[in-house]
């Protein structure tokens, strides 16, 4: 499945793993931590996996998604402050949510990893902070036809570009972004850092919103 495996930040990443995870945390690949990234084909494959779960309750597709994402979600939750046991339990719930909400995934609006991230993040707020999370009012997208395959491809490719752009950032800046997402920076500390490689995804979403607004008029 994985066509690219970028050996990243090596020793640095190892140190981060150790530091975020704490002494007790059994991270696999600890000694040879590397960042793997899925290519555009893989991203489309993840999309079809979610569709297979939605349409056919495909357990094999689910097992593959689980194999790739569960260990990453667990690491994300541990870095965000969950104990290994809590992170394990929480990750299983996140993955079960993917199964149950597969019909709500829209590959023209998000990559599979973005969708999984948002589910994991919401679970994190629920479990670790025991807070409600106010969500924006849904837009009345209405009963939508199956999204255009080309739109889906474009969004998935742009997500890949974004991932590459983040991976290519200077270490110091990348570290800041990771810290922001793991909750190690306060709001004012985030405010001081700039220069995220953003732009393409926003314009896709913006286009979709413009189209929706036109339809509603």
């Amino acid at each position, binding site marked *: 499945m994985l066509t690219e495996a970028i050996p990243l930040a090596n020793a640095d990443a190892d140190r981060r793993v150790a530091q975020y995870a704490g002494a007790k945390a059994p991270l696999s690949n600890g000694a040879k931590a590397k960042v793997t*990234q899925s290519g555009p084909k893989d991203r489309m494959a993840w999309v079809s996996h979610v569709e297979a779960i939605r349409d056919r309750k495909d357990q094999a597709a689910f*097992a593959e998604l689980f*194999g790739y994402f569960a260990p990453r979600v667990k690491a994300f939750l541990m870095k965000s402050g969950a104990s290994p046991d809590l992170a394990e339990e929480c990750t*299983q719930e996140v993955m079960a949510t993917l199964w149950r909400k597969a019909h709500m995934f829209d590959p023209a609006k998000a990559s599979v990893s973005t969708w999984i991230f948002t589910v994991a993040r919401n679970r994190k707020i629920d479990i670790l902070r025991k807070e409600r999370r106010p969500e924006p009012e849904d837009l009345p997208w209405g009963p939508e036809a199956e999204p255009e395959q080309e739109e889906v491809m474009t969004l998935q490719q742009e997500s890949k570009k974004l991932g590459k752009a983040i991976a290519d950032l200077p270490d110091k800046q990348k570290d800041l972004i990771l810290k922001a*997402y793991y909750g190690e920076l306060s709001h004012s500390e985030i405010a001081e850092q700039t220069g995220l490689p*953003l732009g393409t995804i926003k314009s896709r*979403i*913006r286009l979709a919103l413009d189209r929706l607004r036109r339809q509603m008029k």
Partner: protein
Amino acid sequence: MPQEIKHHLTDALLMGYSAGTLPEAFNLVVASHVSLCDECRARLAEFDAVGGEIVAMSETAEMSADSLALTLAAISDAPAEEEQAAAPEITGTAVLPRPIREYVGGDVEAVKWRKIGGGVRQAILRTSKNATARLLYIPAGCAVPDHGHAGTELTLVLQGAFRDETDRFGAGDVEVANEDLDHQPVAEDGEDCICLAATDAPLKFNAMIPKLAQPFLRI
């Protein structure tokens, strides 16, 4: 929105909301502004995409040996959700965006206002304690007591408009004020102004009477 939104959320707020690291009261302001503003909705989607990439390129933590089996068992216990019917919606005329209505338990009529002096009324919304969210009702032409901030104050206009030392803020606009700003928002003549304000530290009032009133304000 009757007018174009001029004052948007900062990148830091959108990123913090996406990461899930802001206090609940700030999340409420962000979710409410995003409900009204396509520009920030699109920017937020972008920050969520960053989060997705961070998870995708994350190191891994080993799952327990039976984790997949346990998850599949949990799934078969609770079958897939059916497409949910949309919750009944207030059509068109709501003053409060939906995230706020969920805290209030209805639209503006359901708000339990308390007078805080000078014609201004407020209602504290129940959020986690690390920051405070409140609705403010400022009659047209009236002023909110002159104050400064120890931390960050976010003010989202829901109806009417106010002006302060920095600019004019109309419906949908959000003002992000930090400790450098001492300001006295004044509601414009014409329509009464309703705002959602969130602070992560007590306000510092510059006049005597509001200082005495502060215990009542709980801000």
